């Protein structure tokens, strides 16, 4: 563990699935580290590339994007579009020099509160070990 470092994780969650899983984790009192900040979105289809960059720009150490399982999208195909775009983004982000290990995609349904809890714990300790993300600021030329 690297000292006192507490990572900041921004989570973009689909309103109909993973956001509800997080709610259920609450109802079930499933404890996990308090490092995540949840942003509610109507659908993972709404998540664009800029939002991920924005989070890093604002000092996030990692970003989570999570929505419904394939085929379960509340809006029929939004998560499918998200997945397709993600394939493109990956390349782009990679070219830009963004550390892809700091971006995590997941499918978590409304019932999978345990999975949400697990992911939050795992992600927090993983990022804690990786240390603060300075890469983006370096790329963007932002003063730390």
């Amino acid at each position, binding site marked *: 563990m690297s000292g006192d470092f507490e990572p900041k994780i921004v989570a973009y969650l689909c309103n109909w699935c993973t956001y509800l899983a*997080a709610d259920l984790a609450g109802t079930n009192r499933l404890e996990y580290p308090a490092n995540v900040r949840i942003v509610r979105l109507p659908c993972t289809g*709404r998540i664009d590339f800029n939002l991920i960059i924005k989070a890093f720009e604002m000092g996030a150490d990692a970003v989570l994007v999570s929505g419904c399982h394939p085929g379960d999208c509340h*809006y029929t*195909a*939004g998560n499918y579009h998200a997945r397709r775009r993600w394939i493109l983004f990956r390349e782009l982000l990679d070219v830009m020099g963004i550390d892809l290990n700091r971006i995590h995609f997941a499918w978590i349904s409304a019932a999978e509160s345990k999975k949400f809890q697990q992911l939050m714990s795992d992600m927090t300790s993983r990022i804690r070990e990786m240390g603060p993300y300075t890469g983006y600021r370096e790329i963007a030329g932002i003063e730390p």
Partner: protein
Amino acid sequence: MEDLTARTAEIPGVKCAVHYKYMCSDPGQSLVREKIVEEKLDGLVVAACSPHMHMKTFRAAAKAAGLNPYLVEIANIREHCSWVHEPKTEMTTVKAMDIIRMSVNKVIQDHSLEPIKVSLVKRALVIGGGVAGIQAALDIADAGHEVILVEREPSVGGKMAGLSETFPTLDCSQCILTPRMVEVGQHPGIRLYTYSEVEAVSGFLGNFSVTIRKKARYVDVDKCNGCLDCWAKCPSKQNQSEFDYGLGQRKAIYVPFPQAVPARPVIDPKTCIKFQRNKCGVCLKICKANAINYEDEDKIVTEEVGAIVVATGFKLYNIGKKQDTPGIIGYGEYGYGEYKDVIDGLQFERLASASGPTSGEIRRPSDGAEPKNVVFIACVGSRDPAKGIPYCSKICCMYTAKHTMLYKHKVHDGQAHVFYMDIRAGGKSYDEFVRRAIEKDGARYYRGRVSKISEENGKLMVSGSDTIGGEPVEIEADMVVLASAMRPSDGAKELAQKLKIGYDEHGFLSESHPKLRPVETTTAGIFVCGACQGPKDIPESVAQASAAAAKVQVLFSKSELTREPEVARIDEINCAACSACLRACPYSAIERAEIRDRGGNLVKYTSRVNPSLCMGCGTCVSVCPSKCADLEGFSEQQIYGMVNSLI
């Protein structure tokens, strides 16, 4: 808590912050209302539980106090914070503060929104007049709404009108269907367009405009009194009857079957002597009502409707060589179409039907003899990926069992043999029904497929397998009945494209969700029922039809439609009209539009969101390369605002 409240009050933009233990309770809500009025608030953040619990509650409270309900945000500090993190630690408090700050930053960017109001035509269109369409039309009409029923054939009734007796109760199909057909024909709330097809559809939920082509009947339905004298006298009588699937004959002027609704004939110009050789004209002379009109032409009518129910049913897979779809392959090895005594299930229904070409006696087509050994083969086409149809047709196990019973009841010394792969009889009293066919009516079941059928001296040699006995079996049959796969009816795909609804790789129409929205399509206001959505039997078709009708009534129970205003909008001035959004939108809510100046000259093209169709998924926002699409309630600015506040 008090500490949080104090710190919240310090966030820029916050006018006041108050603490109350049960904000959602009545006293809590009145506190909210008081503060809104007292402090003249133009935004409200409730830091409490999940928005899924009480967003509605607080929006209502805001509205009651004169604040636009879409200026309310909820900071979820319970489920997402206090219940899941170690209590009373610095980290937990910091997170709670972050959540509140994020919500405040979001509410600052909120707009007043008004629910979208959509007018509503309370008239429904039902496409397809099989048992499903009939049921849906009657249910909607009985609820007091107008129905327009469009049926492609000269009569309503669909496949069920041609069935003999029906599983699982063996009641006579026509006995139960005919009264319903008559009801449809006479219902004051139902306008029937038979021999008609939907040509085009435009508009959206509540406001569809439908163009219908009424094919030329050459008989004026209004003048005709249904005496059928013309039918009796028409000399052109040796034409294959579509209704009897080629086993019987019909005249050139005909009703498909005696109980047809409407009981008005049509002339088939392809077989009418008048049309072919300009002779005859008997029907014109004989008709006292002056209803015959050889000059009749197709007519186009337009109807406005608020909802559409699609019930276009199914057809059977063509077992013979010729196929209409690439990738689907015929069963050359079964000789259907080459050997007259190899027939399909619907043909057998006609043979067994009292109103059929043999008056219900089982006679084989080739020579009219009573077949003493009949082989029934299940899963013909179905569950056969090599032929292009991987799915189970669901009804054939049941109707095959039924066929063996009908056969045995009519030919007491006959023997029915069935080749099957699995017996799929899941349903109330269904398996008992199959057992009855085996135990009481003596059908012999062989578990295995048939490899080939060939004809030898008037006998059909059926080479099959008994995989349980573990050996090939050969049966000399007098007739073979193939339970061929159910496929969507002709033109279903084209219709789906007109309606902008989905269909699967086999052409069955797609429901919005297989479990929770089984009769809705992804297009609001359009519903599906019956076998057009997937293989199903009569009970299921009817249940689904009633469900679709109920959904239509839910829609029609309102005087106008309101929709959540959190929809997308496009900056039309800057839109590059690249159509990326249009293609990505799962609801086809975006259309291409023109911007014209006052002189009517085209300035530019743009994409435009139809707020009546937009469901607010936000896909368009993220695909737009020029950042011209945005989503109310989750706008770019709002989300940035939230993320910004993390610093």
